[in-house]
């Protein structure tokens, strides 16, 4: 069964550094998402992406965050200057449709640790 893959599985970085989290969504999917889960808290929506542009973003997704689909397969989340509070599991998800019904498929996540 096709799956969403995320790399790396664990990223450790120092405060103030830039990080790029990578995702390869399911190949025929058109809608892409980033979510995060701070330890012990709920899974939170960050951003949705469709047709090479951001469709919707949450309050968390400020100017320090950006997303890109640089080619036909990868979908990346960049944090320009990491803060301690950015430490979390980051999940990429993709879906084949919105108007019809298709569940989101999630990757296994990247654990980001900011020291």
């Amino acid at each position, binding site marked *: 069964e096709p799956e969403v893959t995320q790399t790396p599985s664990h990223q450790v970085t120092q405060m103030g550094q830039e990080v790029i989290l990578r995702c390869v969504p399911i190949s025929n999917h058109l809608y892409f998402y980033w*979510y995060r889960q701070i330890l012990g*808290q709920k899974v*939170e929506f960050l951003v*949705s992406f469709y047709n090479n542009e951001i*469709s919707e973003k949450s309050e968390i997704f400020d100017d320090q965050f950006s997303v890109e689909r640089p080619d036909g397969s990868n979908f990346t989340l960049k944090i320009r200057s990491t803060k301690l509070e950015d430490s979390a599991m980051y999940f990429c998800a993709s*879906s084949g449709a*919105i108007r019809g019904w298709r569940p989101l498929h*999630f990757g*296994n*996540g990247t654990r980001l640790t900011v020291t």
Partner: protein
Amino acid sequence: DQQVKQNSPSLSVQEGRISILNCDYTNSMFDYFLWYKKYPAEGPTFLISISSIKDKNEDGRFTVFLNKSAKHLSLHIVPSQPGDSAVYFCAARQAYGSGNTGKLIFGQGTTLQVKP
């Protein structure tokens, strides 16, 4: 802004018995409700969903019930198995349109432990 709430952080049941996980929501504009299952070090895995126009959906051992008047849904697992032990997230999808892009809003999760 907790639009989706799972008030029980944990649940423990005996193998073979029924597990009932509950979820409440506040937004009447949700059009689909989903349950995801999550093991440690893995992403959420889709389990079962229900449209807002239905009141029940069944898939094998898993049944989801929706009570729109009470804004409540529940997941029943019968019979429960030790392999069902995981964190279960309730999620709701905002209907597409008016700036909404079909994102999911998650509850806090309930950790289910099924004892052999």
